């Protein structure tokens, strides 16, 4: 199994907000970027909203990466989570050049297939994955996030892929980093089945090392 958990920044908790894209993209940038400091999740949502205006915390990864490409990505100390809320505008510190870094090259994968994601990990890229959420599958009463096709999907979720089964392994899973705190799953990480990906995968974006 390709397992790159040890290269990740600490697992965080988004709280009762729909900012999963902010944490998944920031986690990917933490991993692929050269900066010591964690990147700001609030800045990701703000950047996405510059690209696609709207009111909610929920944004697409495509909008977030496009927005960050234009505006660069502030550090967490420059724009701490929720202080201020992104809707109040980018704070002065986050706008300062010294506190922002450019987003590494990124691309959208043609399809969020298991092989495509594994190939990106093998190329030392981070993959931000968007999936439909089958409610019970994510309550973590089981070892692997899994669900039959055709289940109810009340919303979509974005996570960072940090590992995958290698070719020939019997159990085909991805390892994902969530933003629900370290109490969820195994220290904030979980395995997601190939079947789940194929049934509920929405899109995937790859971020290269800077």
């Amino acid at each position, binding site marked *: 199994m390709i397992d790159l958990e040890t290269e990740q920044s600490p697992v965080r*908790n*988004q*709280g*009762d*907000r*729909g*900012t*999963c*894209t902010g944490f998944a993209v920031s986690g990917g940038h933490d991993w692929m970027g050269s900066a010591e400091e964690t990147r700001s999740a609030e800045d990701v949502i703000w950047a996405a909203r510059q690209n*696609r205006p*709207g009111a*909610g*915390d*929920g*944004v*697409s*990864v*495509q*909008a977030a990466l496009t927005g960050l490409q234009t505006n660069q990505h502030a550090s967490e100390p420059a724009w701490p989570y929720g202080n201020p809320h992104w809707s109040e505008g980018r704070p002065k510190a986050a706008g300062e050049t010294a506190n922002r870094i450019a987003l590494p090259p990124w691309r959208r994968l043609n399809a969020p297939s298991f092989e495509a994601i594994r190939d990106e990990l093998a190329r030392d890229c981070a993959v931000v994955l*968007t999936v439909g*959420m089958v*409610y*019970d599958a*994510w*309550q*973590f009463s089981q070892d692997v996030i899994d669900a039959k096709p055709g289940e*109810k999907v*009340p*919303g*979509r*979720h*974005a996570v960072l892929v940090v590992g995958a089964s290698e070719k020939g392994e019997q159990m085909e899973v991805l390892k994902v980093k*969530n933003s*629900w*705190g370290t*109490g*969820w799953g195994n220290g904030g990480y979980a395995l997601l089945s190939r079947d789940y990906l194929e049934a509920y995968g*929405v*899109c995937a974006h790859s971020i290269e090392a800077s």
Partner: protein
Amino acid sequence: MASEIHADLEIDLTKPVDVFGTIQQLGVVLAFRPLGRVSGVYVPGTPASGILLHDGHPRTRQRYSAGHELGHHVFGHDAEIDLEPDAGLQRGANERWPDHEKEAEAFAAWFLMPRRLLRVGLEHLGIGDPTDPYDVYALSLWLGTSYTATARQLAVTRLVQQRLADEWASIPPANLKRALAGEMVPNDLHNDVWWLDSRHHMQPVDARPGDRLVLTLPEIPSSGFSWTFTSVPTQMELLADSYREQWEPDFAIGRREVAAADDPERAGTEAERSFVLEVSPEADIGVDHLALVKDQTWTDEEPSDNYELLVSVKAPLHGVQMSEAELVLPPGGEGTA
């Protein structure tokens, strides 16, 4: 005349009017029994008059019929047998009514729904200005009045435009119940569907056995914070959860489709979560406590939100509502006009 009764009896117009209590306060015998297509009967008499109501009708309809029959009493009308009062509310239909029926009908509307009380109800429910038939339905449940009559009275009191009120009043309440509960609509459409949301937190609900509660609360699935029941009364059963079943109220489906059309790849959007609970058809009279918290179940952190309802289960009314000592029926007994 309705306002005079309010004043004379010092009726509190900051809460729904207790029409049954008023009838008894005026010394009128009140009784309930099966009446077929008859909604109410008024029997004037000495020393006591009587009002008989259909015991199989929904409470809201019984209350409206009670207001109508009380109108006959207040105006000193002769004995009356009234059929289907809501049918008379169809625009134009009551134009052909005799004057004493129009008087009784107007009395019922103004007695149960004075403008002041409508405004109190709208404010209490957090509705402000009604914008759709669901608002009217919610108001009618709070007032304890029929949906159609409530829609009409909103126009009479100039709280909504006549055109809108006509449009809303033309919708059969059964259609609203189906839209709110979908396939979870009560088997017996005489039962009510209570649409409850954040605005009803800590509010009392006067339900009857067999009623269904559609509870819709905001949730963001991708946050991991989810609503869980911490207290479900034994005489209530959870029938459906829109996050787990394919079931969903019609109005929620519409809202979700609008949100998805904006950007189909958006992650982290809010998705209303709806639960359907049924008050057991065999439920006992009493007050039950329903409570939920919103939290990440794997942490010890404080919940981000909580929600509570006090569900007061009221049994169907049967028989005479006065003590035996107070009973003085006219010759021929109850039910004769």
